[in-house]
C-alpha cells in the first residue's frame, strides 16, 4: 500500500517493526512504540501519552520535509 501511495505523494510510514516497513518498500520510516499501540503507551498518564504521540508525529512531519534518495529510518 505504501508503495502505491509513494508513486503519487510523499508518504511517511509510522510502524513498529522497521524491517517489515523496509520490506514493503517504505522510504521514510518512523519507528513507533508497540504493535497494538504504535502511537501510545497505556502505562503512561494520558498527558504523557499524548506528548509522546506528538513527539512521534513531529518526527514524521520532519521526515516529510527531508529530501532523501533511499530508504531512511528517522529516529530523531
Amino acid at each position: 500500500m505504501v508503495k502505491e501511495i509513494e508513486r503519487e505523494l510523499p508518504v511517511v510510514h509510522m510502524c513498529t517493526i522497521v524491517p517489515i516497513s523496509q520490506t514493503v518498500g517504505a522510504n521514510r520510516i518512523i519507528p513507533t512504540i508497540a504493535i497494538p499501540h504504535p502511537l501510545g503507551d497505556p502505562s503512561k498518564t494520558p498527558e504523557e501519552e499524548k506528548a509522546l504521540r506528538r513527539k512521534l508525529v513531529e518526527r514524521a512531519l520532519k521526515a516529510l520535509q527531508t529530501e532523501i534518495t533511499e530508504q531512511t529510518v528517522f529516529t530523531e
Partner: protein
Amino acid sequence: MAFRVVHYINQFYAGIGGEEKADYMPEIREGVVGPGMAFKGAFKGGAEIVATVICGDSYFASNMDEATAKILDMIREYKPDAFIAGPAFNAGRYGTACGAMCAAVSKEFNIPVISGMYPENPGVEMYKKYAWIIETPDSAAGMRKAVPAMAKLALKLLKGEAIGKPSDEGYIERGIRKNMFYEKLAAERCVDMFVAKLKGEAFETEYKMPVFDRVDPQPAVKDMKHAVIALVTSGGICPKGNPDHIEASSASKFGEYDITGVNDLTSETHCTAHGGYDATYADQNADRVLPVDVMRDLEREGVIGKLHNKFYATVGNGTSVANAKKFGAEIVKRLVADGVTAVILTST
C-alpha cells in the same frame, strides 16, 4: 454426448446496450448468445453451450452477493459440466464479475471454470487462484485469439487431461502447486542448479520465494505550514461498529471516513476492525493508532496547513499483496483529487 457448458456474458456482449444498460438484472437464456457463437465453432462438437447468463456490470458490482446467488440458482437446472465467463479483456467490472462467478460456480458445483482477461484486468489478481484465466489482448479485437484458447483449455479440463505450464497453455499463472515426475532425481536437479548458480549461468528455481520491488522517494514537502496532510492506516481504525464491515483479516476493502470537526478519537466514537493484534488498546483510544488528536493540535498551531477531512483505513493482516496494492492506488487517486500534499501512514 457433448459436454454441457454454461456461458456468462455482460449486457454489452449480449447486445442489450452499453454503460446506460449496465444495471441490467441477471437473466438466463437457452443456448448461445453473442460470443457464444464463436465458442460453438471452437468446440467442434466436443462441448455445447446449453445456456447463457447475461448480467449488467453495474448491477453485478453493486449487488454482488445477491447477483451471485441468483445466477447460481439459474445455472443449477442446466447441470453444466463446465462454466465459461467472458472473455472480459481489459474491462475491469466485467472481469471482476467473470472472476467472481467463476469462483462461486467452482465452489458450488465443483466443475471447471474458465475465463479470459488481459493481465492487468483487476479481476485477474482477485480471482486467478479460483479460475483458469486465459491471457487475452486488451480489447475485444482479441476475440479471435481468446476464444479458441479458452475453448481448448475447457475441453482439456472436461476430458480430465493434464494441464501443462501456464506458458504452454496460455493461461495466467494461478499460483497453484502441482506435482509431476521429472526426468531426474530431485538431488540431481538440485546439484545441476547449484552448478549453474556457481558458474553464473541461467537457471530457473523450482520454487519462487517472495521478492519485493521498490519505488523512488517523492521530493520533500517544502511548505508544511500550508500543506494538507492526510492520515491513512492499515491498523483497521473505523467508526464504532465498523459500518463498512471491513474484515478482521484478509481485507477485501478499505474505508473512507469523514473527520470534519473531530478533534479526538475516543472509545465512544472509534474502534479497530483489525483481528491481527490485541484490540484492547486501540479500542480504548484509537488515537494510539491514528493520531487525530495531535494532528488537530498541530493544525490549530499552524505547524501544518490542514488535516485532510477524510481518513482511510484498512486491515493489513493477511491482506493479499494484490488487494493492498489496489487499495493504495485507489486511496492515493482520491487524495490527489482532493489536493492532499502528503500522507502519514500508520501500521500496527
